[in-house]
């Protein structure tokens, strides 16, 4: 599904990612954890194609295609979805029209006819129930005046509508209270399928109580320094990041 090989990336001339390697197979859920500033969100942005990020080395294959050669919109239409850490408010663009445009752009890319109004509505209803989001939010402008939890739920709703092959959830748990976290996590769990892969980016272990990952990786100073199963997350929760980072920093100093 996704194969990241030795990715190095700069932002404003500063190297943030220093050689990342990661393989995600269809249906797998990977969690990337790490202290603040380790490069987690940069990795998400590089995969989504954000233009300020310059990839200086390495390659990324997505379903066999060279991801880095694709435009932002083509990556999305190929089935990559990024749930934003800070979803943007766009006054004046209705959420429903926007999602309809996005769904139909993807269909067009796949050589399918656009959905007619009835089918689109039916799909909306179905997915709204799945992620527990109300009509009132969707008839408003994109994220305008939404609470933090509503914004995150809207991201998961868009994921449900766009049915991606790979979803990257960038700190989707940040800023959520426990109830909102549960709703969002339930939505994500319902979207798990045998061939949909998920990359969870998170600072805290608590999201992983709700969404059980197959693999956990620790990102530190632009590299994956430790990988393991979900037990690694529990260990991190218990001991903090220091137990890993200190040993890395020591060996670097030797």
């Amino acid at each position, binding site marked *: 599904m996704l194969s990241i090989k030795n990715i190095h990336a700069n932002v404003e001339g500063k190297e943030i990612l220093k050689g990342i390697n990661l393989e995600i197979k269809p249906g797998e859920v990977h969690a990337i954890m790490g202290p603040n500033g380790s490069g987690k969100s940069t990795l998400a942005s590089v995969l989504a194609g954000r233009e300020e990020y310059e990839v200086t080395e390495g390659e990324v294959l997505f379903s066999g295609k060279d991801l880095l050669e694709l435009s932002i919109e083509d990556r999305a239409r190929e089935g990559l979805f*990024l749930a934003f850490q800070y979803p*943007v408010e*766009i006054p004046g663009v209705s959420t429903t029209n926007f*999602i309809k445009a*996005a769904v139909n752009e993807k269909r067009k890319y796949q050589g399918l006819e656009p959905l007619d109004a009835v089918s689109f509505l039916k799909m909306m209803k179905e997915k709204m129930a799945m992620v527990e989001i109300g009509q009132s939010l969707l008839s408003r402008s994109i994220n305008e005046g939404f609470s933090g939890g509503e914004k995150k739920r809207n991201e998961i709703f868009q994921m449900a509508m766009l049915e991606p092959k790979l979803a990257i959830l960038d700190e989707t748990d940040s800023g959520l209270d426990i109830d909102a976290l549960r709703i969002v996590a339930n939505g994500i769990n319902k979207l798990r399928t045998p061939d949909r892969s998920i990359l969870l980016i998170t600072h805290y272990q608590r999201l992983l109580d709700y969404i059980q990952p197959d693999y956990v990786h620790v990102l530190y100073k632009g590299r994956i320094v430790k990988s393991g199963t979900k037990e690694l997350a529990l260990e991190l929760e218990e001991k903090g990041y220091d137990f890993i980072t200190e040993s890395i920093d020591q060996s670097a100093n030797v």
Partner: protein
Amino acid sequence: MTNVNYFKDQFSALQTSDPNELLTGIRKENFDTFSRSGLPTLRQEEWKYTNISSLFDKDYEFAADQEISPYLLSSLEEIRINGHQNANELVFLNGRYSPSLSAVRSPESQLVVLPLEEAIDSKYKALVAMHLGQSSSYIKDGIHALNTSFIHGGLFLYIPKGQQLLHPVYIYHLSDAGQQHTLSQPRSLIYVEAQAKFQLAETYKTLGTCESFTNEVMEIVVEADAFVEYYKIQNDGPNAHQTNTTHIRQMEKSHVHTVVLSLNGGMVRNNLNLVMDARGNETHLYGLSLLRGKTHVDNHTMIDNKMPDCYSNQLYKSVADDASTSIFSGRIIVQPDAQKTNAYQSSKNILLSEQASINAKPQLEIFADDVKCSHGCTVGQLDEEALYYLRARGIPKEKAEVLLLHAFAADIVDQIKLEPLQKYTEKLIYEHLTVS
């Protein structure tokens, strides 16, 4: 410089052929102004961004009266606004009101429509004498005087007291520039009696490929407690230039709501004057210019608060792409008697190209002490974060830009309260933004 002798000859001919006493007097005074000042140049502060005198390198002439042809009728069909079946449709052909092309659908008890000359010979004579030409005391430049020098074939509308006109008035301006560079000078006077409600929309179309210059003056008197909505839609060819003045006088507790929408065109100057001649008025002015190519649109507003307790709010938005130019110049005067004035003004602009330009000039002249006035202006680009977000959902860059431009325009379009007209403008804007 334009052919002064041509205008002199035409002026003498008109004074002879239409020797109406009231009109000849007004014309004479204004032709003197025109002869003295000529056309405005960039050296005049009020015209510093719009060089209309450069247009008159070409010899503009008035178009002769013409027969109504199938060609004219089909052209008219093209600019008819949605909901026209229920509207009063009034047509100016080459700057002269054409009763035969027009359709008045409201009963006379709700709306009186007369050629201006006929109104002067009717019971409305005193009204016309009192209000026609008032704009000349506010705008003393040559181009405004040129219109007033040639008042002929104008339009008079009268909305009787308390009439809530159910059917709006649509005014279509056709200019035929098929054979020559055509100068059209529509003139109208609208009198809205106390407690009446009136909705008006104007739009323009140039036929042919020579240049056309429309130099329009409309004066509107809004009596106490009356409510006027005024909409101007400008979407003409690049050979279509315009200077127009809408001069509105508001009496006590009246309400005026205007929206000026400019899409395509050549060089366009819109003067919108509001005179608060009594207390307690409310005024909302909106503008939206979505420009590309070499279109140049200069919106000039002036609110003269002469009396207390008036509220005005202005929001003008523009997007300038290619080598287009957008100008907003808003002047607010608060006279010593106009205590408790609330006057707000805001201009928001998006610059899409390095060749495009945007100028915004607020002017506040405040001579009273107990007032609230504010102005603000922004010039920026499309929101990069929003573009990224839309693209990350698979919407291509060009479409994402169009979505954001629509969103930018939306709050002005929402101010078009006349529903069929709002639909019509949404369609125009959609086509304008998509076909680029």
